[in-house]
């Protein structure tokens, strides 16, 4: 079956991203396809490449990035929510005149239409938030 996932909260503050990650892994292990993971609201903060959590804690942004690499997951960060919160890929940072960017490998920034498309194209959409 084809699943998509929406994540409304950033890492650490809420369990939402942790639960979504465990759910995604279990879905893949069970042979399901994940069409897309869409990061919205503060959920865009899961895409940062600048997080340095303590060594004995899980690195949530890195976990997503690795899961994406291993399974060719489409991790989409909402552009409107990302712009509000200062989440930038190289191109967007350049366009806005910033020297730095902070989007982790495996994530891409795109529009809200990607969420609607995920709803249309997937058999199920599951929302994780707070």
């Amino acid at each position: 079956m084809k699943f998509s996932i929406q994540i409304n909260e950033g890492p650490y503050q809420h369990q939402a991203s942790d639960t979504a990650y465990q759910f995604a892994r279990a879905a893949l292990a069970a042979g399901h396809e994940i069409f897309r993971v869409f990061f919205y609201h503060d959920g865009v903060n899961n895409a940062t490449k600048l997080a340095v959590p303590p060594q004995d804690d899980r690195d949530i942004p890195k976990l997503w990035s690795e899961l994406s690499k291993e399974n060719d997951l489409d991790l989409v960060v909402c552009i409107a929510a990302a712009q509000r919160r200062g989440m930038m890929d190289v191109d967007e940072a350049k366009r806005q005149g910033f020297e730095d960017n902070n989007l982790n490998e495996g994530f891409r920034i795109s529009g809200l239409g990607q969420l609607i498309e995920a709803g249309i194209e997937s058999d199920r959409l599951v929302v994780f938030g707070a």
Partner: protein
Amino acid sequence: MAVKKFMYVNRKAPYGTIYALESLEVVLIGAAFDQDVSLAFIGDGVYELTKGQKTEAIGQKNFSPTYSALGDYDVNKIYVEKESLEERGLTLDDLQHLVWEDEDEDWAEKDSIRLVSRSELADVMAEQDICLSF
């Protein structure tokens, strides 16, 4: 492409958190996809629709006028849960009057808001393909 039933479930009050504003942004973008869209306002979500919102003094943009534009986007199934309204001491008169124009009836103006009981709304929710919650 097959049309799916999308329900946007709004359960959070505006301004205190950003969920109401950003979910409205999804609704506006989603309208371009020609799906079967409905909005549900449940719990504190009913506060999103109050009329007379003035936000200058809190330094935030008043996005409540956008709800009255939803009819122009063919978003005209707006379910407000009766129990939630009553629990909060509100009536339909406290909410914005949202309308849409029915192309099939010579652009007659019709109410977009449907005041429904929790159990009626539960039936509508059970028919959806996608529930987007914020």
